[in-house]
């Protein structure tokens, strides 16, 4: 019994397909609990009024946007090293989910920023690095779309993902440096981790759990879809060959 058994698409599908509905329900329940708790049962923060409540969407989405890329990095490396197709397909399946998470984080951040900072957008290090992450997702997805040969596409996107990860981390710190160097601590950014009081902490954790479950469910489902698409193509190709022979 090892994790590599799930490199077999059949085994992977048989195991994950029944789990997906459970994950979705778990995510839904956790999201409902976390959001209702967070929206109605916690007090308004002193200097945020009710705007603080968007934190329950903003932070989990931002967290998953980064984790999705990290997961893609891991699965890309597994694909390059061990050539397990499911791994490459999982990376492909996670990218759009990560992209959407990035967009959610950016949009909720803008909605939050408007009343708090008086602006929808500021070239703050955190915001800027998320915008760059968004561009990385776009490029990664575009490369998948552009290459028709599936194995070539998997190889090239994996290489891009690895190089991109290095540059994403580099950009993160470069952007930090850039802003501090320029605007000498305009410090629009609030250090969320340190600011969150205990009252908000537990519903936030519940929401994060909900997003994690949602992400896992979506990725498993999308990977299953990719596997089915791959099978369908193989069947079509076989049928065509059969027709040509007849």
């Amino acid at each position, binding site marked *: 019994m090892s994790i590599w058994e799930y490199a077999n698409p059949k085994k992977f599908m048989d195991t994950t397909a029944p789990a997906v509905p459970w994950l979705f329900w778990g995510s839904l329940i956790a999201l409902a609990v976390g959001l209702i708790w967070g929206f109605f049962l916690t007090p308004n923060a002193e200097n945020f009024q009710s705007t603080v409540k968007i934190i329950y969407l903003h932070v989990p989405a931002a967290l998953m946007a980064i984790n999705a890329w990290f997961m893609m990095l891991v699965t890309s490396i597994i694909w390059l090293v061990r050539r397990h197709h499911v791994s490459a397909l999982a990376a492909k399946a996670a990218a759009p989910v990560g992209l959407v998470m990035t967009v959610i984080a950016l949009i909720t951040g803008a909605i939050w920023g408007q009343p708090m900072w008086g602006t929808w957008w500021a070239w703050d290090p955190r915001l800027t690095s998320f915008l760059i992450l968004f561009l990385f997702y776009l490029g990664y997805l575009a*490369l998948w779309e*552009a*290459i028709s040969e599936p194995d*070539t596409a998997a190889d*090239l996107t994996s290489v891009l993902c690895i190089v991109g990860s290095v540059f994403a981390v*580099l*950009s993160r710190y470069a952007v930090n440096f*850039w802003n501090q*160097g*320029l605007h000498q601590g305009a410090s629009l950014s609030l250090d969320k981790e340190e600011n969150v009081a205990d009252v908000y902490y537990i519903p936030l954790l519940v929401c994060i759990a909900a997003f994690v479950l949602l992400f896992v469910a979506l990725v498993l489902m999308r990977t299953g879809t990719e596997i089915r698409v791959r099978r369908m193509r193989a069947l079509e190709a076989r049928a065509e060959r059969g027709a040509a022979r007849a």
Partner: protein
Amino acid sequence: MIALLVRDLRLAVRAGGGFGLGLAFFLIVVVLVPFGVGAETSVLSRIAPGILWVAALLAALLSLDRIFALDFEDGSLPLLATSPLPLEGVALAKGVAHWVTTGLPLTLAAPLLGVLLNMEGPAYPWLLASLALGTPALSMIGAFCAALTVGLRRGGLLMSLLVLPLYVPTLIFGAEVVRRGAMGMAVGTPLLMLGGITFGCVALLPFASAAALRVNLR
């Protein structure tokens, strides 16, 4: 490797047209900026370092798809892949050739265009230094993305989408050096970071480029 470098340089200078094209593009972008933002010299001199760096970056981008595409089309890339020179060496030589034909002329032309934008006096040596130190990274990153997209018919557009996010750290530190130079501040830190990025790119990216080329030549 040197023979390959010389061959690429000769091709670029004689037949390519990419040699002068990048420079002309650089000039045009810089000339267009005052039309866009107005001709106030104070504004121009403040944004000059950033404009010059962004323009140089775009000009470098322009000729990236030639790095491998021409050799891929006429079949010399598979030959290079089977030659005794490792593909990593080919990727490195190609990146260096791109730098000599694009990054180096851009670096030399940049101070001239700085005059057009009323750049502050103390910034000139730092503009030269930062471009000289930073453009090799642009070429190596570009060679990597060119290797990724070499098999595609319409790779050019896709490549700009892949390349530009990777250029962000280089651009940040490069423009920061010039900006600080213009304000008379210490430039050591960003200059060192820029050098680190460049040398890291030169040392490591040929391996990634070669991996991508191998996949594309399969």
